């Protein structure tokens, strides 16, 4: 079945932008500006891979997720799924696509209806899409799913509050894989969980990916989790991708100073290494996305910024090694060695 786009990608995103209007006035609202949450983002998601989207709060990673699943309609740009432009499809046109794309959310407490039994939560996708209309058949399917994600099928009639955080996240996973989707977008799926439970959910996602051949877009701010999960990683800053590379490449040899700073900032559970390594601390805060800095958006906090960075915006270009980097003055090997715990690994 030829369902892929060109170059073997499941999903292609080109120049995607989402500007949320800022309005003033009560009756006659006029637009006074826009939050440029996502501002010209392009990437491909290849069939069967796990693509990581990382960045700090406000960088646009969750908005990007909502754009590619078309929970939001973008201001500009295109989203192509299996060679078909889905950017402006209607709700009705999107329905068949919803079977193939599913989301897993961060907060297992607020993403489940407290008055719905687990069986009915996991069975809902079947009802919506008119599959397994027969009640008894549906129950069998749901219990198989519960088994698959490590829940006790006998708990079919329990309510969400009777489950722990980790188990609720398993319910969310079961609901997401119910219709055998091709693409799963996981938005911070483990960050609300306790350390000892995080590993359980990460292993579950990886196993399901192997068993079901899922393609995953994995959004997280925890870089060690991203490194463990992902094949390729895109780093976002203020609505733009600043670096996109194979995971091993990105962690061993980050090119963009922002990627370097992110990696350097992660506290490492090894006192010897923590002493040896110089923590590179960025000054200041992320600027407001309503008025991003001109030129390179990172230049206001970049340790390597020069005059050119303030007015000339760097484009995302292929560097040696195949990484895509948007920077006029990428990091040198020696700079990485000093500050990044994964350098050369």
């Amino acid at each position, binding site marked *: 079945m030829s369902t892929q786009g060109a170059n073997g990608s499941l999903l292609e995103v080109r120049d995607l932008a989402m500007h949320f209007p800022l309005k003033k006035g009560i009756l006659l609202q006029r637009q006074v500006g826009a939050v440029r949450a996502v501002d010209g983002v392009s990437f491909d998601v290849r069939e069967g891979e796990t693509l990581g989207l990382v960045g700090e709060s406000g960088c646009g990673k969750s908005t990007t997720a909502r754009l590619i699943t078309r929970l939001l309609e973008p201001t500009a740009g295109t989203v192509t799924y299996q060679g078909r432009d889905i950017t402006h499809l209607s709700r009705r046109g999107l329905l068949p696509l919803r079977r193939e794309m599913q989301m897993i959310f961060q907060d297992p407490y607020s993403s489940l209806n407290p008055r719905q039994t687990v069986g009915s939560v996991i069975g809902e996708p079947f009802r919506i899409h008119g599959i397994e209309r027969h009640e008894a058949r549906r129950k069998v399917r749901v219990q198989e799913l519960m088994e698959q994600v490590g829940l006790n099928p006998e*708990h079919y009639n329990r309510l969400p509050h009777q489950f722990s955080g980790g188990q609720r996240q398993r319910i969310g996973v079961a609901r997401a894989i119910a219709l055998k989707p091709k693409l799963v977008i996981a938005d911070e799926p483990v960050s609300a969980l306790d350390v000892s439970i995080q590993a*359980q959910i990460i292993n579950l996602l*990886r196993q399901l990916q192997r068993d079901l051949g899922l393609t995953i877009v994995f959004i997280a701010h925890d870089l*060690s989790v991203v490194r463990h999960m992902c094949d390729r990683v895109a780093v976002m800053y203020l609505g733009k991708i600043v670096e996109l590379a194979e995971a091993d490449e990105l962690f061993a040899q980050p090119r963009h100073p922002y990627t370097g700073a992110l*990696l350097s900032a992660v506290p490492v*559970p090894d*006192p010897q290494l*923590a002493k040896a390594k110089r923590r590179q601390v*960025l000054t200041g805060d*992320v600027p407001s996305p309503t008025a991003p800095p001109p030129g390179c958006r990172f230049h206001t906090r970049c340790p390597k910024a020069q005059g050119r960075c303030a007015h000339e915006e760097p484009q995302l270009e292929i560097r040696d090694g195949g990484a895509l980097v948007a920077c006029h003055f990428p990091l040198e090997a020696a700079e990485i060695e000093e500050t990044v715990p994964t350098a050369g690994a």
Partner: protein
Amino acid sequence: MAPLLEVRDLTVTFDTEDGLVQAVDRVSYTVESGKALGIVGESGSGKSVSSLTVMGLTRFFRNAQISGEVLFEGRDLLKASDDEIRDLRGNKISMIFQDPLSSLHPFYKIGDQLVEAIRAHRDVSRAQALDRSVEMLGLVGIPEPRRRVDSYPHEFSGGMRQRVMIAMGLINDPKLLIADEPTTALDVTVQAQILDLIERLQHELETAIVLITHDLGVVAEVTDEIAVMYAGRVVERGAKDAIFAAPRHPYTWGLLRSIPRLDQARGDELLPIPGRPPSLINRPHGCAFHPRCPYVQPDHMRVVPSLQPLPDDAAHEVACLLAEPQRVALWDALKAGATPEEAREQAGVTSAGAPVVAEGGQAG
């Protein structure tokens, strides 16, 4: 010299409709002047309740029963009157919390809130207090502090608010600062700024710090000593380097092995701790970790282990019923990359049957 803070057999229980919650069970630790202690644990391990009790913040709960001793500069805070505690709090002992937005009053200017913190304890004029506030804001790295004292909390970013909280915590030169997950709500680059700040201030001002966190990376960077808590008890305690180089409790091993790490090669599979933390109402008998412990023996389900010093390092204590040679052999095997089953075999630890895993909580 007596330590600055000595907590002895602190026990806190809450009588609730569902039953008696044993939040903190005979917890003991000490903090020396100018040193930093990290308390590590997951949600429900009792790490926050024990610190709130040190601050005298649980004494107003009618359903709380508190016993043990909290000796601060030799004086038992559990026996102190409300007035005496109020006099210490925010003065000699102060605390910063995870969420700076809910700890600052949204209606008052930052400067007013700092001035109030000073004038609650010091008999100084408003102008003097304001000068001191500006100085502290500058010290924690707020740009243009003279102008920013007139800002409201909502005008600050998350990282800036946490700086304000730290400034407020340190404004009366406390001897002890308790920081409860101070960086958990922050982004990594901002977390790095705040950790740097805490470390620098600790050295400049010689404040002792109790840092409560679930993040082993954070304790590795800023503390001197570590106490690991599980289900209301301290299960392992010692110098930071000893805990990371030679951990001795299976729960500590589980924590260290279940997180993906940037400083190690990328492995295939994480080794999660099976099951989930127990309820503090129906805590398992014996060692509270036994239902999740891969090395459990029959008597571990009956006997409650107490903290015992290691034979070769008296400052390193562990509450585990396995024999020391077994623990050494197990950790050596785990460190070399063995799974818990392989480690058990190599160390000659018999299996008492698979650990009783809470339903639905198996490893994926």
